């Protein structure tokens, strides 16, 4: 345990030196290689202990101490936290590449592109050509994206959805930490601020992953419950995602289907008949703007995909129509107009 803490401290110091000190001028290939070995070691440590709160606390404490002493040495030092350790190699790389004292010979090693990697992909391939491989990977992704992003969710969202599910499952498996799972989802939502549509795709992807275990099903359930407590995200999903996705989600998850119904009804109840337009339009400062036509399309699609809903929905709409006066003239009750379209 002490050895691990020492190593963590040592690597934090290494990161600081790599990014801020002129010592890197002395580095050669071996030093570079060893530095990345240490970074990988820290990533392993993170993977092993990040869901172990007791160990995590101890390590965070050690890092705090190290951060303090490093702040004294390096001006404008940014702390390294335990969660940063998951990206230790990346941090090291960023530090090195932004360090103006890094010798060009070291950079050349990192960007060496002599021969294509022929080794098995899961093996560690060494520092030589590290950056070249990263760039190749990122570029290859971009090259293939016009072809693959026609799929409903998109590869990015699928991968991110899988990552989300995995983490959620890990957090939920520690039964005492339900609030941690909630906190996790909230943080992700916050981090995606400004990329709301993409966030919706990720959630959709997460909910559509095929579940092979009880743990996965539990995670999806938790996610659905959480989503229901976030009405604006839910609305956003229902209005901006492609119709097929929303229908798929409704077919897969009862909870989603029901929540979707609620959203649709909320939209409808927000509408007023505009005589000048000759159509129902949305009022209020609702962020999601849905036209009446789209609303009806939503309803029709949902009822087609989930025929068992029809009876209940028709009944409910009828009740609402009656409460509006039970007129059969268009433009007087949004429920009546909806009903007439559905019943065609």
């Amino acid at each position, binding site marked *: 345990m002490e050895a691990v803490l020492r190593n963590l401290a040592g690597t934090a110091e290494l990161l600081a030196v790599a990014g801020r000190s002129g010592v890197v001028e002395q580095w050669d290939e071996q030093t570079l290689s060893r530095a990345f070995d240490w970074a990988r070691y820290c990533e392993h440590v993170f993977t092993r202990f990040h869901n172990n709160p007791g160990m995590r606390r101890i390590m965070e404490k050690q890092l705090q101490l190290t951060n303090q002493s490093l702040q004294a040495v390096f001006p404008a030092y940014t702390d390294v936290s335990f969660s940063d350790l998951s990206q230790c190699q990346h941090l090291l790389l960023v530090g090195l590449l932004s360090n103006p004292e890094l010798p060009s010979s070291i*950079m050349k090693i990192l960007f060496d592109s002599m021969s294509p990697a*022929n080794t098995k992909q899961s093996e560690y391939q060494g520092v030589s050509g590290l950056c070249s491989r990263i*760039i*190749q990977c*990122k570029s290859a992704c971009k090259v293939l994206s016009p072809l*693959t992003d026609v799929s409903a969710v998109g*590869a990015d969202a699928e*991968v991110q959805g899988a*990552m989300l599910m*995995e983490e959620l499952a890990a957090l939920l498996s520690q039964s005492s930490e339900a609030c941690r799972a909630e906190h996790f989802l909230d943080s992700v939502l916050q981090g995606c601020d400004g990329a709301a549509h993409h966030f919706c795709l990720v959630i959709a992807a997460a909910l559509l992953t095929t579940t092979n275990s009880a743990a996965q099903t539990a995670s999806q359930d938790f996610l659905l419950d959480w989503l229901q407590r976030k009405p604006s995200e839910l609305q956003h999903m229902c209005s901006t995602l492609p119709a097929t996705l929303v229908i798929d989600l409704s077919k897969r998850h009862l909870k989603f289907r029901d929540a979707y119904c609620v959203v649709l009804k909320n939209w409808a109840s927000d509408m007023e008949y505009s005589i000048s337009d000759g159509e129902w339009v949305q009022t209020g400062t609702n962020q999601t703007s849905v036209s009446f036509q789209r609303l009806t399309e939503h309803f029709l699609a949902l009822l087609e995909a989930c025929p068992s809903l029809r009876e209940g929905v028709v009944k409910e709409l009828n009740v609402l129509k009656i409460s509006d006066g039970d007129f059969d003239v268009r433009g007087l009750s949004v429920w009546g107009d909806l009903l007439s379209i559905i019943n065609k």
Partner: protein
Amino acid sequence: MSQLQIQLQQTAEPLLNVQEMQFWLDKAVAWGQADSPDTRKDTCLHLSRLRDFLQQLLTHINNMNSTTETMKTLPFLGQFLGRLCWNPYVTAEATSRRLLFQCLWGLYTEHPGNAVERKANQWIRKVLCQLATEDDDAAAQTLMKHTGVPPEEYHLKVLRKRVALLQQNIGKSCSSLGDINQRCSCDSLLAASEACVPLVTCPEAAPLIGTLLQQPVTCVRAALSEDFLDALSSAYSRYQRLSLEEQAVVSLWYHNLSSLEEAVLRLLECVLTKTGLTMQKLKQRLTESLLPKACAQHCSIFLVVNDIFRSILKQAEGTESVKYLIQIFTSCFLRELDLLQHQTSVPLKALFPQSPQSLLVPLVTLPSEMPQEAWRHHLNWLSGSLQRLTEEEEEGDGDSSSSTRGHHNVFDAWFLLVQCAHWVQAAVQLLVTSGPEDCGPLMWLLTFYHHPTNRGHHRALQLVHAKEAWDHLRSLFSVVARPLPVDRLQSLVTLLSSQPQRPSASPLLILNLLVNFAVFFQQSLSGSTEILQTVVERSGLVDEAACVLSSLELRLNEGSCLSSDANRVHLRIKALQNTITHMCAASSPAEN
């Protein structure tokens, strides 16, 4: 690189002209401005030419004395390289990426002397740092941070996911059956193959490339982009084996003739340049090359490979290693074909269309497939048939109409013999135990194998010399008393030392006889060893003797030798090989 520099010094005109630079700069700008299917296609189309241009640029940069000077001659160079850095099609492909980075490093100055150089340095560092570490996808970053997945791993996952999605889409079969008006999923095949042009060297994309190559061609639209096939083939020739699995390689050869030719030529090069290649290593190399398997799966591939071998032999009929290669290749191919035969049975005629049909089955049959007592009769028949064939050709020499046809016949018959040289080896083995009365046809066959063309009607003379050698060998090996008769030894050595002036039997023919005598003749091991050692040493044909021994061993292992006491023969061969190996070691200590 130094060769290019020498070229530069010799030619006064500069390699780089302004118009070309402008052309590529315009291209780079156009590619960066819009991301449409047309620009993507255009980029993939120009990739290989761009690589050449980058190479030229690199040479130019390296020739300049300083970055300042370079920037004076090419003021837009920085802008150009910068734009290319952000073009994923250029950075995905291994060679263009390498050249691009080398150009950048060419502009880097270790000890900058002025503002231009300092700025260039800074810019280069910044670009490289951004390329490797920058990520503007906020959602991805958030998820990475909260799930503890590092960026490198994340990007790898996304890439693999994209590859898997594409593979799924392509795997869907098409049922439009040639109706060009009906849309089908095969359109995506062309698009996907075009997109893969820069990805031929990316190991992660290998499964996708494999799937593309192995798509059954069921529909008019199911075509792979020509650029894609060219890119694959040139990458395949540059790097030994891309991460393609075996079936994908076979499909590549099936789709693209030049990659197949490349593979065959590479094999030939290996065989011709490596000395001391044992038969086992040759066979191994051949199996590793996947050529026999590929030929068994697609007969069209076999016909192409065969044609290449034919033309090689037509030009240089004597190269022994090539003849060995052809023999082993044919036997490996036929074995692979046998393994597949239950699926489709291809008639031998279709596989060997130019060979004389009457000789086909008799030659392709292996000696191990008939009792040893029948060999002599079979070989006599073969020898007689081939003799008749050559006589027909030679008689028709004066008659112009039939002579060309005759020529082809003899060459084709000889080529078939080379492919099925197991019968030649059987003949040599039998010659060891033959008497003077029945060695005639066997001798003829052996001579024909080594001297197919009867230039100046020398074959009769060659036969005489071969028989002479055989006589010498018989008497030499029959002698029990020691020391060995010097004159007999010497005449043998003389026969083995090639004398190009007078037509003589090929030294290799005689060597073959010698080794077979040493293995099969009823002499003590020590006696045979002594004879072999002495003669080989004096004539200097150590490597060739090792070759013959290893081919004998190969035959034995494959059961074609049919000796009643295979064990004894095996031990004998091993002992002789040891002797030869020691001779190799002794004669060239530097090679140890």
